């Protein structure tokens, strides 16, 4: 079990990396009025067959050959199920995969969200050739980071270059603080 949801997001997003995605979007949508927290992880990777998608959240199913278990999606699904929500997988071969997890926002069994900024920063650092769109919503307000926009400004400087990594970290921290109205 992951300590918080941001670690599960990082883990599930690694499936997108493994699926050869060139674009990944991560949306964290917090709707207090509906007591809902929704996390959507969507990629343009190779996708899954209906049978693979059906079994992806089964801990004793995996496509890797090094061992017989795969716990990323099962952990995420368990966290969603236990907090009054659920997890759905939308996928087709060649059409990418979208994982949607819903949680009861104030459900006592909902794991804390954790540090999504660090998850996004590490995703970009770890897969600098993949584009990432991160959107965080709170009620009707939102912040976002889109590496496609960063790339246009950066030219041929890679996203994992040291100065860029620092910029991404500070950008996420500032915009998250502003969205959540936390005094810095």
């Amino acid at each position, binding site marked *: *079990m*992951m300590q918080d949801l941001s670690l599960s997001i*990082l883990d599930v997003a690694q499936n997108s990396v493994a699926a050869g995605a060139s674009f990944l979007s991560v949306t964290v949508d917090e709707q207090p009025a509906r007591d809902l927290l929704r996390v959507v992880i969507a990629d343009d990777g190779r996708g899954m067959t209906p049978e693979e998608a059906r079994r992806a959240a089964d801990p004793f199913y995996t496509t890797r050959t090094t061992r017989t278990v795969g716990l990323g999606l099962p952990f995420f699904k368990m966290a969603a199920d236990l907090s009054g929500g659920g997890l759905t997988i939308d996928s087709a071969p060649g059409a990418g995969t979208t994982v949607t997890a819903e949680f009861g926002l104030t459900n006592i069994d909902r794991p804390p969200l954790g540090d999504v900024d660090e998850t996004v920063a*590490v995703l970009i650092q770890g897969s600098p050739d993949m584009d990432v769109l991160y959107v965080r919503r709170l009620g009707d307000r939102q912040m976002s980071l889109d590496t496609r926009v960063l790339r246009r*400004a950066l030219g041929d400087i890679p996203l*994992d*270059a040291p100065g860029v990594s620092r*910029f991404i970290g500070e950008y996420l921290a*500032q915009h998250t603080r502003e969205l959540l109205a936390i005094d810095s």
Partner: protein
Amino acid sequence: MKSIAELQALRDEMQGKIGIRHDSDAGVRVVVGMATCGIAAGARPVLKAFADEVGRRGLTHVSVGQTGCIGICQYEPVVEVYEPGKGKTTYVKVVPEMVPLIVSQHLVNGNPVVEYTIGSAK
């Protein structure tokens, strides 16, 4: 507030620098195991710490990246350092507090921190 316009200035500044890394195969590669086992054991702050420390020191010959499950889950977080011509060093049960020493002693000065490697693990 941070804005994208700052990146243009950053690009101009970096393009003027000698030794900016374009070919990551040419330098030292640090990879952190970022599968379920690694993440659950604390790999994320370790990768962040390496990226921060390498950035702070301006080590343009070092790239920091990730890999999947390395196959020794009981030793996670696992960090591998690849040096051209010298092969691979495997650090195990890495925590962010170990990172500054690995960066200064190994990545900068070329001497692996033997007590953190898998050969010293119990």
